[in-house]
């Protein structure tokens, strides 16, 4: 009997204690592609002369446990993943819909990821979300990319499925949503956005010591959020403002020009939606090329979120779903 590639699930829960596997597989989902588990084994042949031409032995340098996959963005799981990627969650509401406000914190949480491939199960503990991305093309459902890195693998562990598997639920999609951008102010306005990618990157690095092959910790580096939006404009004023500083400008601006964006993906407005905003982004992009084949001009504007002054959050994610705060406290 072979293993079936169709039977594959990833599950996770926040850890209440670093160094201890979460007791539960709180949320889970099926995958659209990627890697369920990569132990990242670095193993080399010994480079040594001897009385034979074959290498004499091998040695191991390190393991780095990484999960890197794409899936859809669902209301329940996306809140926990955004908390992992950003660091902080505030939950309000007395009943469904609850509102989860996800924002930056210096030290993101640790999670246990559990994966299943047919009849085989694995767990990685002390995972941090290295990268979380949301990509969409026109009105097709949002594709979510998840990359997590952890410390210690418990391979071929006991069987178990997620407490809540969202695979069969409706995932977020763009239709009925809000898509706004401005390249020269903190107040984005509606534009004919056709697609884009928003990527939260924590630049997680393994902490390595001599006494063991697996990392003792995984540590965040630069907090980098990249926003790339494609749009069909009626004029190139957004590009013009990014370059000159104003939509009527005729000369380049010496100082960087900061803009903003706002996207809202939805299932039912106000009760199941995913809202992403950033008030300070220095956008850039290419002036559109002509094309003998004709057609509407599309431009792509890309920028990295920078920290606003004062206490203003650099990036805010709002999720409405039916889960209260107890669903996100971990195990």
């Amino acid at each position, binding site marked *: 009997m072979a293993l079936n590639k169709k039977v594959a699930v990833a599950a996770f829960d926040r850890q209440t204690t670093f160094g201890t596997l979460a007791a539960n597989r709180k949320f889970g989902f099926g995958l659209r592609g990627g890697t369920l588990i990569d132990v990242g084994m670095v193993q080399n042949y010994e480079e040594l002369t001897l009385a034979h031409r074959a290498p004499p032995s091998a040695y191991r340098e390190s393991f780095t446990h990484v999960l890197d996959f794409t899936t859809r963005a669902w209301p329940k799981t996306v809140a926990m993943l955004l908390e992992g990627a950003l*660091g*902080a969650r505030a*939950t*309000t509401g007395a009943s469904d819909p609850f509102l989860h*406000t996800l*924002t930056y914190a210096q030290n993101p*949480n640790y999670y246990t990821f559990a994966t299943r491939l047919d009849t085989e199960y694995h767990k990685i503990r002390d995972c941090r979300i290295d990268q979380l991305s949301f990509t969409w093309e026109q009105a097709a459902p949002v594709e979510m990319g998840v990359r997590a890195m952890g410390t210690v693998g418990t391979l071929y562990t006991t069987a178990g499925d997620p407490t809540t598997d969202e695979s069969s639920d409706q995932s977020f999609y763009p239709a009925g949503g809000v898509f706004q951008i401005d390249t020269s102010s903190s107040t984005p306005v509606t534009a004919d956005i056709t697609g884009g990618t928003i990527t939260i990157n924590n630049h997680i690095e393994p902490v390595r010591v001599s006494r063991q092959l697996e990392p003792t910790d995984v540590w965040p580096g630069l907090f980098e959020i990249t926003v790339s939006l494609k749009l069909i404009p009626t004029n190139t004023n957004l590009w013009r403002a990014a370059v000159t500083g104003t939509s009527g400008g005729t000369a380049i601006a010496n100082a960087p020009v900061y803009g903003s964006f706002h996207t809202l993906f939805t299932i039912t407005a106000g009760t199941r939606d995913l809202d992403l905003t950033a008030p300070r982004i220095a956008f850039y992009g290419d002036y559109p090329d002509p094309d003998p084949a004709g057609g509407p001009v599309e431009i792509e504007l890309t920028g990295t979120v920078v920290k606003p002054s004062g*206490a203003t*959050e650099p990036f805010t994610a709002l999720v409405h779903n039916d889960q209260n705060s107890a669903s*996100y406290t971990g195990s």
Partner: protein
Amino acid sequence: MKFKVLEDVSLSVGGDKDQTFKAGVVEPKESNRAALDKLVALGLAEAVKEKGD
């Protein structure tokens, strides 16, 4: 300085356990000060000025 929490909220900041705040005036302590500052940043709480502040 005290803080006025504007609605019931459960808050987790950077790996700390959730702290729950009921709507109303809260006395800041060392253990909840970072959480209260976060709530202010999110617009879920506001500082209440007292005499002498």
